[in-house]
């Protein structure tokens, strides 16, 4: 019986990759542990090892092929005595369910940052022009590239800007967001730190007091809890405590929220934690255009800015204005879709789900307005309230915990500024009030999905199906 070797997922969020080259040819005998191919993911180039023994019967993907979907059969292995070299591969895994349940035929030889056999539940969206106001040329780029370009452009403009964090330099970024920066800016300005979040966050704050412009990367924001004293007590409060003398122009950035199958300690949204504190700005973009424009604004901002990214979004492509001074102001939400029946607000990855929900709602005759908050603090209450006064109904979406979350604040803001306009109670869509579980089915249950938003919007509109 032939054995199918499938395109492996080499990170929790990998959906596709480039098969850089085969290291075996048809007819080669392979043993368990032999390196058979190199695969380039969105984060790194990795070696794929054979798990089973046998003879290579067929290679279904050529060396150098891009965009090979996770789960697609890339080779066929013949067991002893088999000779059929024309064994056809089974159909590529098309659905997410199939992909996430597949048996992996190979494991990565290197396991950092986080090697998981899981495939990803990621919304597949066509590139969206996130800035309709922009009439100039655009180019397609991923959120990852947009963030990198934002840093590179600001570093070219301002010698005081430097980036530090774990694996940002020689490794090229745990999630490749800082790829190429070391080569261009040298190890003076792109600095690998020891694993020492509290220390390097505090060191960054001191450098900002010393009139530099640090960008401090947390490999994920989960690790910022180690450093939160320096972020809150030193970065956020010192301007006030110094009577306005001691500004702290620093950006703390990195992936926030759930990635995929990394469980409770690595899957948490910190938007409400940081938005709670005066003295900080908190930004959490969705599109690549906003990621770029807002990160540039954050780097230029004279205040400490918490910049919450999302690992699942890094590989998603959007149209981005083709301009090296594309800056999006902090503190401005954006209406991504105009509607008249209900206002849906979201930020970061939830924006994509909110837009999908709006599509489904439209099919059922509900015309939803979707607002991408983009900045959590200072909150653009103007845009929010203007919309709610028009639609008279409001659904807040976030991935984080519900209790004392962003939705709770938005509900208060809407009550404060648009109470008389409301025709229905405010609806809150949020993650479940549980530590993030590992099991795929439980994880999915813990995270708000498109259907959750659709149901909440229907409740707000008093429509059937809004349970």
């Amino acid at each position: 019986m032939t054995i199918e070797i499938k395109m492996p997922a080499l990170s929790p969020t990998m959906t596709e990759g480039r098969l850089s080259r085969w290291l075996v040819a048809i007819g080669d005998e392979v043993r368990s542990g032999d390196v058979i191919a190199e695969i380039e993911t969105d984060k790194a180039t990795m070696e794929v090892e054979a798990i089973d023994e046998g003879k290579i019967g067929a290679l279904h993907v050529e060396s150098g092929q891009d965009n090979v979907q996770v789960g697609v059969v890339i080779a066929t292995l013949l067991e002893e005595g088999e000779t059929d070299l024309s064994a056809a591969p089974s159909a590529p895994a098309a659905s997410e369910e199939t992909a996430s349940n597949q048996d992996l035929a190979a494991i990565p030889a290197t396991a950092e940052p986080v090697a998981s056999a899981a495939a990803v539940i990621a919304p597949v969206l066509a590139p969206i022009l996130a800035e309709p106001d922009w009439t100039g040329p655009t180019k397609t780029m991923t959120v990852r590239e947009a963030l990198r370009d934002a840093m590179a452009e600001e570093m070219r403009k301002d010698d005081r800007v430097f980036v530090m964090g774990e694996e940002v330099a020689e490794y090229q970024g745990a999630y490749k967001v800082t790829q190429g920066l070391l080569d261009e800016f040298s190890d003076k300005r792109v600095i690998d730190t020891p694993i020492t979040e509290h220390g390097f966050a505090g060191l960054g704050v001191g450098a900002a007091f010393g009139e530099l412009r640090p960008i401090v990367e947390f490999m994920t924001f989960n690790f910022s809890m180690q450093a939160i004293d320096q972020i809150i007590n030193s970065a956020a409060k010192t301007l006030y405590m110094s009577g306005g003398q001691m500004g702290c122009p620093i950006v703390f950035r990195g992936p926030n929220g759930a990635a995929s199958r990394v469980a409770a300690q690595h899957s948490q949204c910190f938007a409400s934690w940081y938005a709670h504190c005066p003295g900080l700005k908190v930004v959490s973009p969705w599109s690549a255009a906003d990621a770029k424009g807002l990160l540039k604004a954050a780097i230029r901002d004279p205040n400490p800015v918490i910049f919450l990214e999302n690992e699942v979004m890094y590989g998603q492509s959007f149209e981005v204005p083709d301009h090296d001074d594309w800056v999006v102001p902090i503190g401005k939400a954006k209406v991504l879709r105009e509607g008249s029946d209900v206002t849906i607000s979201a930020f970061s990855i939830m924006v994509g789900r909110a837009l999908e929900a709006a599509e489904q709602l439209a099919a059922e005759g509900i015309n939803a307005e979707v607002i991408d908050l983009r900045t959590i603090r200072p909150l653009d209450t103007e845009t929010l309230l203007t919309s709610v006064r028009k639609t008279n109904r409001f659904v807040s979406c976030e991935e984080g915990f519900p209790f004392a979350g962003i939705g709770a604040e938005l509900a208060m803001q809407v009550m404060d500024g648009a109470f008389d306009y409301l025709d229905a109670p405010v609806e809150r869509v949020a993650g479940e009030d549980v530590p993030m579980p590992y099991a795929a089915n439980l994880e999915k249950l813990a995270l708000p999905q498109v259907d959750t938003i659709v149901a909440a919007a229907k409740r707000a509109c008093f429509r059937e199906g809004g349970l």
Partner: protein
Amino acid sequence: MARAKSAPQKSAKKPGRPPKSVKASAVNDRPAHSDMLQMYYDMVLIRRFEEKAGQLYGMGEIGGFCHLYIGQEAVVVGMQSVAEDIDSIVTSYRDHGHMLACGMDAGGVMAELTGRADGYSKGKGGSMHMFSREKNFYGGHGIVAAQVPIGAGLAFAHKYKGDGGVNMAYLGDGAVNQGQVYETFNMAALWELPVIFVIENNQYAMGTAVPRAAAGTDLCDRGKAYGIPGMQVDGMDVLAVRTAAEQALAHCRSGKGPFILEMKTYRYRGHSMSDPAKYRTRDEVDAMRKQHDPIDQLRDLLLREGADEAELKALDTKAKSIVSEATDFALESPLPDPSALYTDILIEDIA
């Protein structure tokens, strides 16, 4: 803000001065007479200032926490006596002495203690949180040891900018048991940052004596694992402090990375004004005062070597008068305007 003038004028400092010998007290290694008088005056000013702060606390003019520096004056005065203007300083919440030694105005500091609009932080920081960009004084930090990585960050900025400056990050014997200190030692050594970690070992972290909290009580050795040289210094002897400071500054300025100075010192008062200090005997405190007082030691030395008693008396009087003026200034300064509640949270104008 009324800026009191300090007297006498400090001797001119030249950047890049070569290090002096480590031996402190040989007569021919002595600092210039004017420097000695300056150090004497600086210590007396801090002493008188802190006594007045304690008094104002008792009168209810100063609130909250108020940590006095009395007894430890030689540490910061000795360090500052050889620091350059470009050097930066950061310390913990026991910070009044450091601010005065940096040349910050006594009136501005006292007005901050009384929570008035003319205080260094406009009355919004208080005893533990004051800053002066002009004097390169970066606080005044209320969280034990938080100032240590910040100091390394300031040193990082000195090195990045190539301005030749050194940061002096002061921490107490309590702070040395915080994890972020070792995170900072590691990075400072790894990146050869120009920072002196000045451990002010006053022997009690609030009420806990060093041997009760520290496994290994030679705190100067705490950087050994990182290859950071450390030196134990009689922190009650301002000349010993000055000599050690010269050596440490020269080390840092020459690009050799961080240095640790453990200053063996003593605070006469409680940890803060509300501390009855039951964890030590009155005799212990009296013995330190009588035998090791930094001001008396220097005064005796100056007189032995022929200083004019009247000259010292004039400095004493001057310090008293500065503190008196500062107190008047602090008590006459208005409370912050209610509108100040909502200012200085964020910098609004984006360059």
